[in-house]
């Protein structure tokens, strides 16, 4: 016994080989068959002490304990203890059947009684489920012997971040279906998750059953294309030529000066000496000069159609690059796969 205990002290080794626990279960079963119920019970209970024991091994050990408490020898029967153990067993597996080597008619009747008087459920899920895209789902099947509320909580084993909370109300059997993406992002990250499914019986008694098992998620992060939010202005060409500005001064002086000069132009003879210059000429010349200078300095330059067209093309290319990036990201979202591997044996 000490040797077995020492051997089981290293859980990693035990899980890898599993033989020692199975040996213990076999030892307890043999003791039961040898009618040594006390030893069978004792050895089976030692299995329950081991953290490395799987749910299946624990269930098997509990069966030995129940069988040892309710053998066909009336003197050795401890009905209430056996019934309590069987109730614990059927709570998480209401379709439980005892193996032939452990049961007899009386124990089967007691198992039926346990099933009748206990709120029991059975949880199952397809071992490997692949969900694709934002509408991709995974499901856990719940079956119960009574109507109840079933609530599932999936939380990361590291960090306890709750990924999924979902429930079924007032049913005896159904699928709890949950999406694996929310807001176009995966809910799961790659890693191990713990699933806790709690069933609450409807009605006055309100028995509660909790089942735990594990989930391994393979959900790599989505690598999105980065869409530029602002166009690089250095890519744009000038759409107008330089403004006229100071280059308008000389034409202004010429047109204004010409007008002023024309106002004092006379033919030869008396008109050249007697006629006076037209005063309007100076005013008009000044207006022409000023308007030309103002036009020159308020000028925004001439449009450059080729550059405008080139900029338009660049803008369209930019918009297309954004649209392409968004479309590619949408495609990556819709084709994103989350692979969930359920392990109903592991907590």
């Amino acid at each position, binding site marked *: 016994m000490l040797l077995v205990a020492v051997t089981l002290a290293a859980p990693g080794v035990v899980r890898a080989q599993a033989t020692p626990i199975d040996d213990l279960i076999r030892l307890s079963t043999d003791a039961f068959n040898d009618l040594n119920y006390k030893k069978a019970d004792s050895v089976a209970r030692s299995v329950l002490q081991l953290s490395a024991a799987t749910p299946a091994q624990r269930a098997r050990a509990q069966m030995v304990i129940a069988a040892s408490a309710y053998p066909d020898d009336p003197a050795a029967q401890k009905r209430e203890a056996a019934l309590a153990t069987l109730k614990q067993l059927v709570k998480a597996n209401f379709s439980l059947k005892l193996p032939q080597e452990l049961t007899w008619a009386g124990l089967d009747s007691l198992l039926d009684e346990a099933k009748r008087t206990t709120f029991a459920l059975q949880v199952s899920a397809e071992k490997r489920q692949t969900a694709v895209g934002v509408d991709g789902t995974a499901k856990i099947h719940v079956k119960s012997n009574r109507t109840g509320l079933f609530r599932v909580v999936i939380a990361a084993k590291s960090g306890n971040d709750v990924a999924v909370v979902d429930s079924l109300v007032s049913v005896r059997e159904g699928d709890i279906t949950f999406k694996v993406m929310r807001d176009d992002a995966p809910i799961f990250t790659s890693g191990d998750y713990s699933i806790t499914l709690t069933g609450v019986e409807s009605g006055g008694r309100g028995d509660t059953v909790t089942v735990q098992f594990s989930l391994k998620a393979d959900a790599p992060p989505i*690598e*999105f294309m*980065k*869409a*530029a939010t602002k*166009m*690089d202005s250095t*890519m*744009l*060409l*000038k759409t107008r*030529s*330089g403004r*006229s500005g100071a*280059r*308008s001064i*000389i*034409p*202004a002086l*010429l*047109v204004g000066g*010409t*007008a002023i*000069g*024309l106002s004092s*132009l*006379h*033919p030869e*003879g*008396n*008109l050249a000496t*007697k*006629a006076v210059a*037209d005063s*309007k*000429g100076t005013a*008009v010349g000044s*207006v*022409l000069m000023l*308007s*030309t200078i103002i*036009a*020159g300095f308020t*000028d*925004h*330059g*001439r*449009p*450059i*159609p*080729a*550059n405008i*067209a*080139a*900029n338009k093309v*660049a803008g369209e290319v930019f918009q297309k*690059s954004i649209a*392409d*990036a968004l479309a*590619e990201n949408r495609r990556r979202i819709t084709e994103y796969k989350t692979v969930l591997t359920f392990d109903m044996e592991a907590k």
Partner: protein
Amino acid sequence: MRRLFLCTAFLATATQVAAQVKPAPATPPATPPATPPATAPAATPAATPAPAAPAQAAKAVEPSKSEFRVGGFIGSGERSYDRANNVNTATGQIRGVEILLRGSGAGLYFRSLSGTFGKKGSTTNALQPTIISADARILLFAPTFTVFGGVGKRCVCGPPDKIYDVGMAGVSSTVNIGGSGLRTYISGAFLVAPDNSKPATSGSSSKVKLSNGLEGEAAVFYRHPSIPLFLTVGYRTEIFTGKTATTTLPEEVRGLRVGAGIQFGGH
């Protein structure tokens, strides 16, 4: 002739300036990078697609070398003439229409105007003969430097009427002020008209006299880039010395000139 020479030199200078005022080609920006600035981490496997590099910088749209313009104008000015050493001046109006049609290197220009000066019965602004003229010109070379020649008729409608067959030659320059829609315009022309009056006595062999004159104009034209209408304001002077075998009649007509019309091209 001295004035004509000065006028021509003036226009030649303007033409040189016009060449400088021509809009410079846009400076192309620095060569765009082959890839856009990194907006995604280097680890991102699919980088943002690079927008295609725009075409190389191109020249600004040049003013259209073809132009069609039809407009009317009205001038407020004065006319003076010297008859028998007596200078007479009257104010009045000149109205007219003009049509311009030009291509890249040549064009046609037609103009008709009529001016009335003075008022009947006025002592300070005595009525003068009506001035009516019409001419057609052939334009050569680009708008920034145009040489033109043409013919026309000029009537100093008396009484008595005196009609001159006028030949003319000159230069003009039109300069666009960038993309503002404003253009400056200056022109000068020399006018000449042979005396075609009948001799006073049959068989007389008097020497043919040539009337001559100068015409100058300075104006700005404005046209909105998207509206084919133009407005113009300017100043115009015409001096003319009508000569016959026995008389010499110097006169000058000058004044403000405003106009409007339809214009296609030229900007």
